[in-house]
């Protein structure tokens, strides 16, 4: 039995990266636990509960590969009270952390497969933990070709420009970018991701796994398109977000049917979602 007293450990902000322009305001925070044991063990796809002292607590997907254990990375879009307060903080400020919570991406189980990552906006953040894990030097040989389709509202809203060259140069890896509307000096795709999958991704119906994350409407339309292309529900993996307080399956907020996104998720295959009520 594990005791959890909902008490956050103390972590320090060691770096803040302004990811996007002012229109969406996404920042990436690098955090480090203070104290004697600064190691935070987690699996790709898990999340943490972050406390901004005096303001509140909210769940954030871990955005870095667990192979890099000396820092904790989350990307945060300024949306509500907690995220707005977090965006006000600076390097050296302290926040509270608890976790990691939830299940994880089945990256071990998916070895020897081709990996396809399809993201919408900040949905790339949780996928980054799996992408970096798969592209990690020690793991790269265990997986087949990697394809990505990254969707953003505009070029200004793109994330991780410091990662993209490394990802583009990785062995046997192809990345496609798309934005909502055409604009000058943009020589990549334009349009919503579900309309581009057929032409931009080589979709195998065997030996390939599809990781999808973005806003609920994007997840639903991308999944529909993948099913149209003959992809099996069990080969489609997504990660969901819900309002939650505890992260432990007790506070009663994040359930979809009898399953809790915090405890039984946040990662679900579409096969699993088919057995759950459509309430997310």
């Amino acid at each position, binding site marked *: 039995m*594990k*005791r959890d007293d*909902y008490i956050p450990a103390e972590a320090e902000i060691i770096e803040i990266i302004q990811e996007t322009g002012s229109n969406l305001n996404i920042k990436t925070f690098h955090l480090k636990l203070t104290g004697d044991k600064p190691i935070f063990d987690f699996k790709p796809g898990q999340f943490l509960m972050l*406390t901004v002292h005096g303001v509140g*607590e909210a769940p954030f997907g871990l955005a870095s590969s667990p192979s890099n254990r000396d820092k904790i990375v989350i990307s945060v879009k300024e949306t509500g009270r907690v995220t707005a307060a977090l965006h006000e903080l600076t390097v050296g400020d302290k926040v509270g952390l608890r976790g990691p919570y939830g299940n994880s991406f089945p990256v071990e189980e998916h070895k020897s497969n081709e990996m396809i990552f399809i993201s919408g906006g900040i949905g790339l953040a949780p996928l980054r933990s799996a992408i970096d894990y798969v592209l990690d030097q020690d793991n790269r040989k265990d997986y087949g070709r990697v394809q990505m389709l990254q969707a953003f509202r505009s070029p200004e809203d793109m994330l991780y420009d410091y990662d993209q060259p490394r990802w583009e140069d990785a062995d046997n890896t192809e990345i496609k970018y798309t934005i909502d509307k055409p604009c000058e000096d943009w020589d990549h795709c334009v349009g919503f991701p579900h309309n581009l999958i057929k032409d931009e991704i080589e979709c195998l119906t065997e030996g390939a796994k599809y990781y999808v994350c973005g806003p609920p409407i994007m997840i639903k339309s991308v999944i529909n398109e993948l099913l149209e292309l003959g992809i099996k529900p069990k080969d489609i993996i997504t990660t969901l977000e819900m*309002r939650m307080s505890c992260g432990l*399956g007790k506070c009663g*907020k994040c359930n979809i049917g*009898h399953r809790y996104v915090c405890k039984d998720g946040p990662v679900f295959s579409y096969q699993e979602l088919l057995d759950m009520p459509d309430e997310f």
Partner: protein
Amino acid sequence: MRLKKLNSKDLIGLLEVLFAEYNLIAPFKVEQGRLNRVLYRFIRQDTEIPAIYLKELPETTPKNFILPRDERLDFNGLEQADRSDETRTRLFFGVRSCDLAAIELFDDVFLDEDYLDPFYESRRKSNIFIGYSNQILPPNNFQKELGIDYFDHQLAPAFLYEDLEARGRDHYYLKIKAGFEFPGAVENYLEELKTGENDQLEALLSDWEAKFAQESEFEIKSKLPFSEKIAFNQVDWQEPTASCLGCGVCTYYCPTCFCFDFFWDRSTKNRAWDSCMFSVFTEHASGHNPREEQHQRWRQRLLHKFSYHPQNYGGKPGCVGCGRCIYKCPVNLDIRKVIKAVDNSLIEGGAGQ
């Protein structure tokens, strides 16, 4: 098993010796404005004992003491093993069996094998309960339909039965379960009391049970847990729940509702009850809300109790049938009516078994 027979004076005497041993909590009738309410509270001095009011179902339950409406999550206090207010065992006196079943349900959730909630544990560990019943079936009660015995519960080592029609005589029976012993002073007092005849008690309880059966006609035909998929998708949730105002009073009086939220008071983390009947319960910061309509929130409340909870906790329902939500609802929305609508749909669809 030991059975004692008591009159009113004997019972007051018993409560006096219990008060000397325990932090005693019992129901009292209190005036609040024009309302007469029956609420549990601590007994501060023994002169209050004769005012304990058992006849009617209290509005509140021991939940208010074990998972308080709001509490400061005092992490430092948890580490101090001997907190002065926790050193004496709390005795909850006069608890109905349905409310005991609700505590059992809380234990399943907060002391479960995955994660143990230490704040719950600290409030739960030194409690004992003395159960209570008389021949009045509390209004709207449907506990029997959920498999909860009227006259016994495993969490109560002792149970008091009051025969209201025999008032003025030895009209109380106190049943103490085999193997349970009170502290010495209480045992000495019990020694002095008359022994009850078990046959007489059994006959009395079976009369009450027969009377209750006549008064409570409600029946759930489908087996629990309700089929999640069919109940979620194929039941008309709007019609039976249309009058709901979303006030949440049902969840605040519910002895089994345990959903909570954290809030901050400067650097202090607090916990408070929350309610699935509120729209903000599931609203994301982005504005997206998986349950935008009130009937979707009703669906959540009902299926949490009759499908999701039993699926996760060995078939046990998440409702104890106490009837408080029916009595308290400002628009008389009766949960039995909604259960019936679901039940009928499941039976018609052949998914009731």
